């Protein structure tokens, strides 16, 4: 075997603390090394050409590049050796930048360490073999989980791009949080007016199959060929017959049902269509409140329904869909403010959440857009907004900033003035975070044009005083205590991961952080990909996001899916596990430890054996270290290759 070694200067990044020429010189003495040199910038065009030329002229079989982290340029150099006519896996990188030159100043020690790393790479390369990806067919359909604005955008973009889309929404209508908002910042345009048409587009798009009031139950398969079980929860109304006329709602005698769409402000009927613009506009029965279910008799809706759509005996139905890619857009939930005992812990009716306030402001809300206090229906004169409730507070384990609360609070202060001109708003804030196009100008407008008084400091306590609320806090700019008698207090509750996110992540086999938000593949460069191939993220399920960012991510995820499906067939990464079935004793430990479900147990002439599903395996290597027999080997990282590296290090 003839190996070429290229030691990169990376300008002065490496050369400043590593004698690259000396490393190249040392490398010439390593076994099988036929050529070694130092290069100014190996990733540059002349650098790559130099590698290609050397392969051709010296007849090299493999190449070691000693430069930066393979995370940076492995793909670059693999392409280069491929252009030189070698298999792309006949490349090894020695990371002498992040692991050497950037972390140590002792030139001599650095040079020695760099040489040792090159030696490892050479020993590994001597045991490399050519690997070839396999190709397989793909199902050109996409599953979008979550029908909020991010999911809607992803579904529409995919469908417009010619893909069949399966959209699954947990509640009975798409629209998500945005449908509950009155207005949007910083333009103060009507939320349902801009979202509504998109929702209608979803309903009318021939390529989108919408499953509302449904949840993903199980996900099997792999990129290109997922099989998804979807539980369509019982609505007790045959939606193929329901016309959304709303007669059942008018007649339903059970009028004290929890109104989830209105965030518990006001009540609704047991059979209901959540809001006038709902998509699909279909009724469903909340069995927790329906007299037919609670008392066994009523049947009013069945009697009045002109199309005979009521089905009290309906049961959940599980359907299976085959898709090639999945976009997760499950959004967020609001922080539970009752954890703040000092803000009343939910005991005071006139201390409400920001989303409840949106419903009070909304013309389609329970008060018809008239701001009324929940306790006595009186119109408030003094409204206090408290920022960062469940954001930037380690005492409730929410150290992160939710990002959008500063903006929606400014919007709500403006709308309060619009609704009640003689009102006065106060906003207690920590810092105003308004980094977006026209955002800071917007918060200034709330202060300067709408006269909202911003008080920089935390609220220490809210308690009732007569029929008003006393809000006590600090004004840290003035260095004094502030007490405000308020009629209504609005808590700017932060975002947290949607309930059930970790469970869904485990079904999708993607990672999530300690707060339950899904992890992207790279925080900067791969923001909508996950580390499971074929699964993408959009919107606030990845972290708190406002509407523009969520829409942007919806489109980004769609473009990733379209890109994936633009290929005729998919190639599988050959760096995966292989089972030597002669050594396999069928203990099944590998199948148990595989986080991706890529190992299945098969029967070979009456004996259990492990087999790796090549398209599912992600090449993590857990099975290889689990196998007590050494029967599982991870291609390109076999025991022999790794031991050769260890030996090179320990014996040199």
């Amino acid at each position, binding site marked *: 075997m003839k190996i070429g070694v290229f030691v990169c200067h990376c300008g002065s990044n490496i050369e400043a603390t590593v004698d690259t020429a000396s490393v190249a010189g040392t490398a010439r003495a390593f076994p099988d090394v036929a050529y070694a040199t130092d290069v100014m910038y190996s990733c540059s065009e002349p650098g790559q050409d130099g590698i290609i030329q050397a392969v051709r002229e010296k007849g090299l079989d493999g190449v070691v590049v000693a430069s930066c982290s393979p995370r940076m340029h492995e793909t670059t150099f693999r392409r280069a050796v491929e252009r030189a006519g070698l298999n792309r896996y006949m490349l090894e990188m020695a990371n002498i930048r992040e692991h050497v030159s950037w972390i140590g100043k002792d030139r001599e020690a650095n040079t020695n360490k760099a040489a040792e790393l090159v030696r490892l790479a050479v020993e590994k390369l001597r045991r490399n073999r050519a690997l070839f990806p396999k190709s397989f067919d793909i199902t050109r359909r996409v599953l979008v989980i979550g029908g909020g604005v991010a999911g809607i955008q992803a579904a529409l973009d995919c469908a417009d791009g010619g893909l069949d889309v399966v959209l699954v929404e947990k509640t009975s209508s798409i629209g998500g949080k945005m449908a509950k908002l009155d207005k949007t910042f910083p333009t103060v345009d009507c939320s349902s007016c801009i979202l509504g048409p998109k929702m209608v587009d979803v309903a009318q798009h021939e390529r989108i199959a919408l499953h509302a009031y449904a949840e993903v139950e199980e996900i099997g398969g792999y990129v290109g060929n997922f099989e998804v079980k979807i539980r369509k929860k019982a609505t007790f109304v045959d939606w193929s017959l329901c016309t959304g006329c709303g007669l059942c709602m008018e007649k339903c005698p059970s009028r004290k049902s929890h109104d989830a769409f209105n965030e518990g402000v006001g009540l609704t009927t047991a059979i209901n269509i959540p809001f006038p613009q709902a998509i699909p506009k279909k009724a469903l029965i909340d069995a927790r409140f329906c007299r037919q279910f609670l008392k066994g008799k009523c049947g009013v809706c069945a009697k009045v329904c002109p199309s005979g759509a009521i089905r009290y005996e309906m049961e959940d139905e599980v359907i299976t869909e085959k898709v090639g890619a999945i976009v997760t857009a499950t959004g967020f939930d609001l922080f539970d403010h009752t954890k703040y005992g000092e803000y009343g812990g939910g*005991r005071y009716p006139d201390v409400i959440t920001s989303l409840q306030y949106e419903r009070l402001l909304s013309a389609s809300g329970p008060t018809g857009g008239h701001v009324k206090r929940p306790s006595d229906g009186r119109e408030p004169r003094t409204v206090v907004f408290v920022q960062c409730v469940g954001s930037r507070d380690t005492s409730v384990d929410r150290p992160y900033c939710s990002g959008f609360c500063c903006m929606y609070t400014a919007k709500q202060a403006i709308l309060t003035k619009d609704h009640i001109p003689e009102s006065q708003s106060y906003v207690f804030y920590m810092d105003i975070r308004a980094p977006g196009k026209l955002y800071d100008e917007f918060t200034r407008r709330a202060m300067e044009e709408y006269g909202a008084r911003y008080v920089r400091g935390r609220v220490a*306590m809210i308690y009732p005083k*007569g029929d008003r609320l006393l809000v006590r806090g600090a004004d840290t700019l003035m260095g004094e205590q502030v007490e405000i008698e308020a009629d209504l207090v609005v808590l700017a509750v932060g975002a947290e991961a949607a309930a059930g996110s970790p469970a869904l992540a485990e079904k999708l086999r993607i990672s999530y952080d300690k707060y339950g938000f899904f992890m992207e593949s790279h925080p900067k460069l791969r923001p909508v990909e996950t580390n499971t191939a074929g699964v993408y993220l959009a919107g606030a399920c990845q972290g708190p996001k406002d509407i523009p960012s969520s829409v942007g991510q919806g489109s980004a995820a769609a473009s990733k899916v379209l890109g994936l499906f633009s290929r005729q067939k998919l190639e599988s990464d050959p760096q995966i596990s292989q089972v030597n079935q002669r050594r396999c004793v069928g203990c099944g430990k590998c199948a148990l430890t595989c986080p991706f479900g890529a190992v299945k147990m098969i029967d070979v002439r009456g004996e259990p054996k492990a087999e790796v599903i090549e398209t599912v395996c992600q090449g993590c290597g857990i099975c290889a270290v689990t196998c007590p027999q050494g029967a599982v080997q991870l291609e390109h990282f076999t025991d022999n290759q790794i031991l050769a590296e260890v030996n090179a290090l320990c014996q040199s």
Partner: protein
Amino acid sequence: MSQALTYAYYPGCSGLGTSREYDQSTRAVCDALGIGLADIPDWSCCGSSPAHTVDHVLSAALAARNLAKVEAMGRDTAVTPCPSCLTNLRTASHRMADNAFRERTNALLDTPCRNTVTAKSVLQILAEDVGLDALARKVVKPLAGLRVAAYYGCIMNRPPEVMRFDDHENPMAMDGILAALGADVRPFPLKVECCGASYGVARRDIVARLSGRLLAAAEDVGAEMVATACPLCQMNLDLRQGQINSAGGTSHHMPVLYFTQLMGLALGVPEERLGLDKVCVSPRGALRAAAERAAAETAKGSKA
């Protein structure tokens, strides 16, 4: 309570002086409930007031001397009525969890403290170890009709990571006990607010303002009596009520009793063992009004 509860008991300095009725009523109530209180022999200052503002090790040593004596008694729980003592004993334990700190503390002591004792308030053992159901069964004279606000003071539950008892913003232990005794416990929003504490000496105006606010809030929720668990709170609200009234132009007449005194009444403890005559604003009127209200309620109930 199949098994007799016995605790090492730390009365604290105020229990021997300004809050003798708290100590007396605590002992009487525990007696009535079959709880043994074994006085810590030769106990000394808990390290409150000046020491902890000057030197944490010195303050912890004062507390640790007492904790070591509890260890010598072979007990693992020390009980005190006073929240200030409790804070110091618990803070010392908390700090001594750090071995280096404990060594520095023990260097000041003749008998080293192993830090094996948990200090608890009388309120905590009554609420947690006796329990509300057991307590309700022992009531012989319910506090029916008594409109009372439970006031915990600012340090009984805070900081939560040290005190580890009840909700630190909305504690309910005393509310629960008083309700179990039959009282009409009002939702008192300022139950953990500051009374002004030792500023009663240096800045009477501050105490007049803060304690005045507490009395006004208690009246606001319809309370006719305040139950406290802290000698300093009791003193500020009760002894200084006249000062509060003259400073604020108010006319509060709010009896302020220790919750243990009210417990004693409900459990049928003879009044002379509860020190009801030790408080400044007499509770007689409020107790009489409650009894009348309860009687009227019963009459109405029997008529219906």
